């Protein structure tokens, strides 16, 4: 058993007495911060909080207990760590922390400004206090960093870079190179996010203004396009056959079908709708008119458009089945659905014009 100095033992006793208050502080501070971050829609990789363990506190006091007069001179008895995906978001979280807590600037560190030879410790450490309430005199620490910085920090710790053994210069150099690379990656991810947001805004503007042929077909642009409800008119026309209710359903998976059709931009999709809507209606009508089915999926229009298009292109049973495969997932029974759709289409006017 290691003998503790009287000062360490005294501080540990004081700490044990304060444990219920520290637990309350941990809950209040973490709840406040988590709620505020959520309200700002900042996506986090991790949000964690902890109370310092007795083992860790004892170690700290044994090493540098002389620095602390009272237990609250130790500022990380309660700690919160916020790990973001992007460097920009570290700054945003820092602003939130400054708004909702009082900061002890003398003891807070922006290691991003001071640490020139490492990467993992490029985090922000703020020593904070609650702004009000009975716990407002107890300090706690908030660490903010990106996911890459977090991972680096863990690896650095695992390898023992900061350990007792002095590393040969070639290893230090290797560490520095990796650190630089990760810092660049962090910056690039942030830049990429900004660029993509800008791209999304441009797509949104073009889609809204109806310049479809200028917008490449992509997940983003197709999603924006669907917001314009381009299949609603056809859906309503089909629904009128049996006065059917339209049941909401996702349509994003039809993007794969359009990619298989080699559509390049939203103009191609719009043209596809304009040129095939009447025939898609005829196909749906031929199937539904002989039933009393009065509930239809929102995909009814787009599905019939795809079937008609592929039939008109001469895709035959293989082509029609491939549409069903893309919509329903590949399965043998799609061949029967394809056969039925093709059979139904044989009787329709557009087949005789081909």
């Amino acid at each position, binding site marked *: 058993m290691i003998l503790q100095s009287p000062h360490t033992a005294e501080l540990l006793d004081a700490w044990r007495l304060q444990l219920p208050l520290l637990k309350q502080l941990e809950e209040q501070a973490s709840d406040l911060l988590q709620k505020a971050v959520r309200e700002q829609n900042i996506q986090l990789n991790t949000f964690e909080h902890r109370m310092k363990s007795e083992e860790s506190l004892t170690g700290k006091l044994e090493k540098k207990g002389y620095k602390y007069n009272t237990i609250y001179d130790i500022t990380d008895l309660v700690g919160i760590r916020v790990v973001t995906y992007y460097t920009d978001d570290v700054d945003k979280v820092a602003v939130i922390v400054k708004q909702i807590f009082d900061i002890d600037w003398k003891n807070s560190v922006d290691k991003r400004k001071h640490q020139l030879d490492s990467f993992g410790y490029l985090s922000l450490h703020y020593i904070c206090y609650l702004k009000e309430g009975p716990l407002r005199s107890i300090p706690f620490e908030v660490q903010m960093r990106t996911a890459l910085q977090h991972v680096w920090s863990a690896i650095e710790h695992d390898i023992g870079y900061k350990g007792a053994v002095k590393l040969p210069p070639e290893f230090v150099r290797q560490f520095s190179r990796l650190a630089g690379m990760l810092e660049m990656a962090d910056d690039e991810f942030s830049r990429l996010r900004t660029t993509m947001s800008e791209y999304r805004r441009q797509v949104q503007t073009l889609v809204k203004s109806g310049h479809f042929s200028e917008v490449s077909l992509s997940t983003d642009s197709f999603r924006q396009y669907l917001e314009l409800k381009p299949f609603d008119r056809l859906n309503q026309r089909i629904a009128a056959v049996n006065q059917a209710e339209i*049941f909401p359903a996702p349509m994003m998976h039809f993007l794969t079908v359009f990619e298989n059709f080699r559509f390049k931009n939203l103009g191609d999709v719009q043209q596809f709708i304009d040129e095939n809507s009447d025939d898609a209606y005829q196909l749906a009508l031929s199937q539904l008119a002989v039933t*009393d*089915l009065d509930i239809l*999926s929102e995909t009814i229009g787009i599905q019939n458009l795809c079937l008609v298009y592929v039939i008109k292109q001469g895709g035959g049973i293989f082509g029609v089945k491939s549409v069903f495969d893309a919509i329903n997932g590949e399965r043998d*029974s799609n061949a029967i659905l394809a056969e039925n759709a093709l059979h139904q289409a044989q009787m329709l006017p557009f087949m005789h014009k081909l």
Partner: protein
Amino acid sequence: MKTTFEEKDGNYVMHFEGRLDTAASVQTEQEMKVLHNCEGHDIILDCAQLEYISSSGLRLFLALLKVAKSKGSKISISGMNDNLRQVFAMTGFTHLFEFV
């Protein structure tokens, strides 16, 4: 119309037999309520003996889908004959369910 419920290999299984038409749908809706407590279980709707499904039947399946989705459970439909599958296809609902 007859339904039977069982728990099999951790899944909730309901067997359907007969014609699920408007007349049968009220009773079937009651019987399907047991599937609504599906937290932690996937659902299998065994339709091998199902002869007919109307819009009312489709609505029951879609309502169950909504509940199951909110509880993180998956629904698969097994043994459905080609005619019934055609009903799902012509109404555009095939992609919402997994057919096995």
